[in-house]
């Protein structure tokens, strides 16, 4: 009897352990479908990616992307506003399923979480009037480029641009932007968000992206090892890219098309 009891006890314990192990192994994607809800972290203080609109609702690239993904999965969307400091902890503590929060990729982050394919452009580049044709650093030879002094793009230009480029350095992004708007410079090296700002202020002088100095697009973050979820999200992004949804989002919020070869 005692041995039977013992056996029964052991079996129960083993089953319990297995049960726990199985529920832990059940992937986030199945959880989302079972819950009929996806929880997505978006920024609330970083326009045009995520901010609070006049109607007090979150808006921006990341919000549009979150809505699209929830739509494609056919589940309800719960938006979780986060700051840039706590977006990864939210993911690690399973408070959200995805982080769509203008997240860039770097080796430290890759140790902690997994990334999708890129969904939005974020880069430093040379921008300028449509009439000027430059496609690479060498083409800047003999031309004048405005830049914000001490910025990453300033250092990139100094390191890699031909020596006969005239670099006009201004105090801050706003002065660089004014220099371009007033026509004092026709080419500037800056981030694509600054270019968006110019396009908003003066659509007629919207700068065109000529080439990139440093590319650091935004990725969707998710917990490590969620292969099923990652595959699903990547295929949704691929679909969005193919059907022009990503380009629409870029046009709507960044006032510029996706850069050439985006997501390739």
């Amino acid at each position, binding site marked *: 009897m005692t041995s039977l009891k013992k056996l029964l006890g052991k079996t129960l314990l083993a089953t319990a352990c297995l049960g726990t192990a199985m529920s832990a192994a059940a992937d986030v994607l199945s959880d989302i479908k079972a819950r009929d809800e996806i929880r997505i972290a978006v920024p609330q203080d970083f326009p045009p990616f995520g901010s609070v609109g006049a109607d007090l609702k979150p808006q921006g690239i990341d919000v549009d992307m979150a809505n699209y993904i929830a739509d494609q999965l056919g589940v309800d969307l719960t938006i979780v506003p986060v700051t840039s400091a706590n977006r990864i902890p939210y993911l690690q503590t399973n408070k959200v399923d995805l982080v769509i929060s203008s997240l860039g990729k770097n080796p430290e982050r890759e140790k902690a979480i997994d990334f999708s394919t890129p969904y939005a452009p974020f880069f430093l580049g040379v921008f300028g009037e449509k009439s000027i044709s430059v496609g690479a650093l060498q083409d800047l030879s003999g031309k004048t480029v*405005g830049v914000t*002094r*001490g910025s990453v793009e*300033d250092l990139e230009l100094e390191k890699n641009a031909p020596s006969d480029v005239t670099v*006009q*350095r*201004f*105090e801050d992004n706003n*002065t660089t932007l*004014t*220099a371009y708007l*007033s*026509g*004092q410079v026709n080419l500037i090296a800056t981030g694509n968000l600054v270019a968006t700002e110019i396009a908003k202020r003066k659509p007629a002088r919207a700068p065109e992206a000529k080439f990139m100095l440093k590319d650091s697009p935004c990725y969707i973050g998710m917990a490590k090892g969620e292969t099923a979820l990652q595959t699903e999200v990547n295929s949704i992004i691929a679909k969005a890219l193919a059907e022009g949804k990503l380009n629409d989002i870029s046009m709507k919020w960044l006032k510029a098309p996706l850069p050439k070869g985006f997501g390739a």
Partner: protein
Amino acid sequence: MLNFSDLLPYTDVFFGGLMTTIELTLLTTVLGVVLGTTCAAVRQYGHPASQRAVAAYVELIRNTPFIVQLFFIFFGLPSIGLMLSPWQASVIALTINLGAYSTEIIRAGLNNIPKGQWEAAKVLGMDFRQTLTRVVFTPAFEKIYPALTSQCIIVMLGSAVLSQISVQDLTYAANLVQSRNFRAFESYVVTALMYLGLAMLMRYVFAMIGKRVFAFREAQ
């Protein structure tokens, strides 16, 4: 802690900046004093309408910040089709600024010439132009020479603001070096000493010029 040797690779940058500041100062000091002298004469002896025009110019410049004048010329004028290079905008801004201040300084000197001098010149058969250039100007300038010297030095120091519109002057050099090697203390100490040296040099050169121009005193 402090490490001035980090500045050595940037010697050319500092030297280039220093030369730009000297060139701009030389050019605008001459242009500004000529403008100021002309305006002072007009303000003192000109037609009432032109007197008012000069007064308006002087008040406008003396009662607005230099950086606003500079930004207006560099960033504002392109909107009405007048596109100036950073260098041109700087020369114009510094010249009209010194012109306005020196107008008032020189006018004070002209005011100071006793009526008797004018009457004596008239008795000797001099016309207005001759009286002004041969009798009035030299003693008038002698009276206000120290004030004029100081004003020119103030404009030289004020040219530091030009780095805001990407003119590669001494301050631009300091800012650039500081943004590259993060040696803020060292960069700005060296720059401050260069400005100090320039100011002292200017005072010396002005004194030398003054000695020659106002030599008539010694002959007396």
